[in-house]
């Protein structure tokens, strides 16, 4: 059986984060309806796609993410990744709200990982081991997007991909 190599822990985390932000009414998905695509767009976008999303996200709060780096521990089944989230909003208090939610959700290491593992939307090919809040920057006016404030949150995640008897991805 061929493994699905499109699966990625960072994308799983993004799905989980979006679900939580919607559930807690921090974001309203109806605000992100695209007439062109005829669907809601998730306003958590990879940094590589920001240029094409700029117009759509103009004036709307959103999050840009990027992988800082990844490495495997001596135990090669445990992968460690750092992910940078940049939160943008024109409203200072909205930035604080998102940042405080992420702090509350992701600072508890194995308890935070457990929440993700228990979420029904998670791919069964991953097991999160710990999530750690590595850094939060102060909120400041953004140089990238005029009129927006921005803050950065760095998460460090440890996870394992479910493998077969030979240690290959399932």
């Amino acid at each position: 059986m061929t493994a699905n190599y499109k699966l990625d822990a960072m994308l799983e985390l993004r799905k989980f984060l979006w679900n939580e932000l919607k559930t807690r009414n921090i974001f309203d998905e109806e605000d992100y309806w695209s007439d062109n695509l005829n669907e809601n767009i998730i306003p958590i976008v990879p940094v590589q796609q920001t240029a094409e999303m700029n117009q759509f996200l103009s004036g709307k709060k959103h999050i840009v993410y990027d992988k800082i780096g990844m490495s495997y521990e001596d135990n090669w089944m445990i992968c460690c990744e750092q992910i940078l989230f940049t939160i943008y909003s024109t409203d200072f208090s909205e930035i604080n709200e998102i940042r405080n939610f992420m702090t509350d959700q992701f600072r508890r290491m194995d308890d935070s990982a457990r929440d993700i593992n228990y979420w029904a939307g998670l791919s069964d090919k991953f097991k999160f081991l710990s999530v750690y809040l590595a850094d939060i920057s102060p909120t400041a006016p953004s140089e990238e997007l005029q009129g927006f404030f921005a803050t950065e949150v760095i998460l460090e995640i440890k996870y394992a991909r479910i493998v077969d008897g030979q240690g290959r991805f399932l």
Partner: protein
Amino acid sequence: MLIQASSGLERLMAGSKGGVLKDSTVAQVSAYVYYNAAVISKLTTNKQFQSKFSKVIFEQIDKDFGEYIDALARSKPRSLHHVYEWKQAGSKTARLFHLKLVSQDGLSFKIAYSFKPSKSFVPAEGNYKRRHIFVDKANIMEMGQPLTISPKYADRLVFEVNGATVFMPKGKSVTVKRPGGPGVKNQFSLAHSRFFSGQLVNNSIKKSGIQRIFGAGMAKALRLPTNIKRVQYSFSPNLIRSQADASLASAFGGAL
């Protein structure tokens, strides 16, 4: 300092002379502390160990810091484009910064950053004969230092602003008040201090595997020789020091 402090124990290790009752406790505890102090001080003053210790940590910090700046630069290129070659913000191979070990005192060491000269041409639209390399780009933009551009080979400066060609008067220079844009001044320095004053550098040190690499050797070297465990009324400092040497050599192999 550790050796100086532990030298006071030599007298106590010699044991007490005379008296009816003899007690080994003071001499033995002193020998125990003396042995540990000898191992630790020899280890921490050993140049090879210091060098290996700092190298392991520095290499991890260097890697993590570079990746951190790359990610920040991809997310906010307007703030950090200046520490990369033109139009390559966030690219590892286009970095114009690097970290270096500047000094070492025992197991403490200092890390500083410096900027590398740019080697690529300043992007220019249009068909210009002469291309320019802004060598000190990263440093000048980081400092927010105003820049004066003067004609060097030609009679006058010619450049484009918003699609319009500007012909400067003969011999006149142009001053760029904020080279790199308004958002770059001190931004690298800010990111650097965030990395080194927060959790990120600690994570990096943990990730370096320093505990795994040196922890087992330290534990082995600190294992007490059997003669110190035995009840004795006096211990030889010379013997203990030579045992500490032998133990370190055995624990760290050829590294020391």
